[in-house]
């Protein structure tokens, strides 16, 4: 493919969701030649589905609120493997980032005094857990993600960011030194392949919830950035940590925000009992998501589930009244009517824990620089590669993310990556150009699909992968099942390597995109499976029947999955925030 066109940018941002657009905005303002490359029009990115809000100590609901309390909640919520320097950065920089969003026009809901409306969310406390429930989640009704994403897109338009919309990044291009110097991308509309050259490549590709059969995630959440980084040989961190959101609509998987419980809703079992009072006497329905999700599964397993099959529980909202529902949760009313055929003002919504968020991802520092390990186990920066948002693991979420922290993560670390890249570009970056063989390496898998002449179909293989992950790597895990799952995934990998792309046309060929996505799902699933099998403890979202306790002696660590050897290593968690005392690991109760 020597006749391939090339495009050159100072920075290329792959992914047009919240973090990608925030990074792009920073770079566009600085005048750097930046492009956002997104496989969907940016406002179709999954950030748009975020509902409840963006958690941040802006001291609106409580004038005495303190970002340190938010940091404490975040570290505790993450079951102590969140990096404390990163959590410190996010929580202290957060207010600045949220006020910026407001100045850009984000239509936040308001209190009577005109300040931004904040609602209680799970795992929030005042005074380091001693002052009761906090209300720290800034909201635009229950459409905060939509409002945020559109606001960021609008401000990128204002600042003339270059967009490559409906372009798909196929693989990273590395030079002879192993630096990332761009990517191969495909214009979906025409099928044209382009070599994108860039001094900074930012993976802002979001999550990969589609490795599970039941997920709140959009159909596009196929872990493309994770797949690209793994194929390029870079390690992944904490990939066993998948958040199951307590309230996905039963049967449909669509999300019902935690804000419902923040506004006063609660979960009930088939006896009408508010069962969270038993599992988390203080925080009740607003305990950490991992805790609530496990409690729900326990109720179901112990025969107190609702419905004919007893396989879900109910979220009760009718006592809030139509006015609160209409004002604070209008989107939820709409979604439950559409997907559960239930009017929440009259009946409870059937819900079940549903795959929601990938805490793991590409390990980065607070500047978004991707990290790998050298032979001695020391951190080493990957030249040219950055990640932010759900694709990255900074790690602020540790083993379990708090509600509302994902949107904050997006804007804080999107912004941080943008600022860092701007200053790095100002200082000057020079990497070796990619050679033809470097480019050919990045073209390998696309060529494989294009040359396939027979084999299994993509949708069937995808469904199989999702079933394996759903049954063997769900809310509760155990050795036997996971070993079985890992084995099945290994076989599936072989079959996917021989699968068939039937449609080889060029114009808007979605079959080709879905085939390329399947490769990425496979990479993410395998990294998840092996990491989950090897982490022999229960921590945060990772719960094992066979190792029910947290093991701080051996596992107060990040896991690091190495794709070349398919083995799991460890990486130290940061316990040295700069301006506050370390939060020492404690038993985690709500």
């Amino acid at each position, binding site marked *: 493919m020597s006749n391939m066109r090339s495009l050159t940018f100072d920075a290329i941002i792959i992914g047009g969701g919240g973090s990608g657009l925030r990074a792009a905005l920073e770079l566009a303002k600085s005048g750097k030649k930046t492009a956002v490359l997104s496989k*969907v*029009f940016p*406002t*179709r*990115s*999954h950030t*748009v*589905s975020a509902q409840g809000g963006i958690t941040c100590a*802006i001291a609106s609901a409580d004038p005495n609120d303190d970002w340190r309390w938010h940091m404490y909640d975040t570290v505790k919520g993450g079951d102590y493997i969140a990096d404390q320097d990163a959590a410190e950065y996010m929580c202290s920089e957060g207010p600045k980032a*949220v*006020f910026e969003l*407001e*100045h*850009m*026009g984000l*239509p*936040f*809901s*308001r*209190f*009577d*005094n*005109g*300040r*931004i409306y904040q609602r209680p969310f799970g795992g929030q406390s005042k005074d380091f857990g001693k002052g009761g429930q906090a209300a720290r989640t800034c909201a*635009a*009704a229950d*459409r905060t993600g*939509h*409002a945020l994403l*559109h*606001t960021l897109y*609008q*401000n990128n*338009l*204002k600042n003339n960011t270059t967009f490559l919309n409906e372009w798909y990044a196929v693989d990273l291009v590395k030079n002879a030194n192993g630096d990332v110097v761009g990517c191969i991308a495909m214009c979906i*509309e025409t099928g044209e392949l382009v070599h994108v050259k860039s001094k900074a490549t930012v993976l802002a590709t979001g999550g990969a919830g589609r490795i599970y059969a039941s997920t709140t995630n*959009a*159909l*596009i959440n196929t872990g493309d950035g994770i797949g690209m980084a793994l194929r390029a040989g870079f390690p992944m961190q904490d990939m066993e940590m998948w958040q199951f959101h307590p309230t996905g609509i039963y049967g*449909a998987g*669509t*999300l019902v925000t935690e804000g419902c419980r923040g506004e006063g809703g609660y979960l009930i079992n088939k006896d009408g009992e508010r069962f969270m009072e038993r599992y988390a006497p203080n925080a009740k329905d607003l305990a950490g998501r991992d805790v609530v999700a496990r409690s729900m599964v326990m109720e179901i397993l112990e025969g107190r589930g609702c419905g004919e099959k007893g396989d879900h529980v109910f979220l009760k909202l009718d006592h809030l009244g139509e006015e609160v529902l209409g004002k604070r949760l209008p*989107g939820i009313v*709409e*979604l439950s009517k*559409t*997907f559960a055929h239930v009017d929440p003002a009259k009946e409870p919504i059937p819900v079940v824990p549903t795959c929601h968020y990938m805490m793991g991802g590409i390990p980065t520092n607070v500047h978004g620089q991707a990290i790998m390990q050298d032979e001695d186990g020391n951190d080493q920066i990957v030249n040219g590669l950055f990640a932010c948002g759900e694709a990255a693991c900074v790690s602020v979420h540790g083993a379990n993310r708090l509600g509302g922290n994902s949107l904050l993560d997006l804007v804080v670390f999107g912004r941080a990556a943008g600022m860092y890249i701007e200053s790095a570009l100002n200082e000057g970056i020079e990497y070796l150009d990619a050679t033809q063989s470097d480019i050919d390496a990045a073209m390998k898998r696309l060529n494989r699909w294009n040359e396939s002449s027979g084999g299994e*179909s993509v*949708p*069937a293989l995808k469904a199989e992968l999702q079933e394996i992950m759903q049954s063997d790597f769900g809310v509760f895990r155990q050795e036997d099942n996971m070993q079985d799952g890992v084995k099945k995934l290994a076989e599936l990998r072989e079959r996917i390597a021989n699968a068939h792309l*039937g*449609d080889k*046309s*060029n*114009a*808007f*060929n*979605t*079959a080709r995109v879905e085939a390329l996505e399947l490769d990425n799902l496979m990479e993410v699933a395998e990294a998840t499976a092996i990491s989950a099998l090897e982490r022999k403890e229960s921590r945060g979202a990772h719960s094992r029947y066979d190792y029910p306790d947290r093991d701080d002696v051996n596992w107060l660590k990040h896991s690091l999955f190495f794709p070349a050897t398919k083995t799991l290593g460890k990486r130290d968690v940061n316990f040295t925030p700069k301006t506050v005392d370390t939060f020492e690991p404690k038993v985690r109760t709500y």
Partner: protein
Amino acid sequence: MSMLQVSVYRYNPETDSAPYMQEFQVDTQGRDVMVLNVLAMIKEQDSSMAYRRSCREGVCGSDGMNMNGKNGLACITPLSEVVKGGKLTLRPLPGLPVIRDLVVDMALFYKQYERIQPYLQNDTPDPAIERLQSPEDRDKLDGLYECILCACCSTSCPSFWWNPDKFVGPAGLLQSYRFLADSRDTATSERLAELEDPFSVFRCRGIMNCVAVCPKGLNPTRAIGKIREMLLANAT
């Protein structure tokens, strides 16, 4: 019988000289699934079937299409709502060039959106915290900011069909009013000056197809009326 007969608009620019309708039989097993689920089943039969989709819950605006003659989002339209006589006809959004099958070229639609300067403009220095806004002023944005840019409204609007290059269209005008109505925006007169020509706003004939099809229940016609009121108040 749970077989659903689906007639789909097909066009591949590389192989077809003209678009045509293709018939599919889809086994829904009697369930009242969404139209998007039906499309996924069709794609399993024929992987070359092209359509856009993302969130599958009606908030991203990817899968706007024409279902049995009416624009809407495939992901939140149950079969029971559209299927008549056991038959479903799917066509791309009308009035925009077709790229392939159900995928339309939305460049004109986006251009009209960009034209109204869809971002907050405020010429006072940013305060250290947020700009204050009363709940009453914030309420004025309800029914406006929720637009998902699916283009169901603009592509059902005859005025937009005839003048997609000059008439902003219901989606763009709804967003235009979203910023005109925002107490934090200070560019009101500049915005109005851009709209007072005979096409941008005034080509709206009050047909109200936009209101009838909006999957989010928004009312662009009302917003257009408000813009007219503001123009009138500004100029008389």
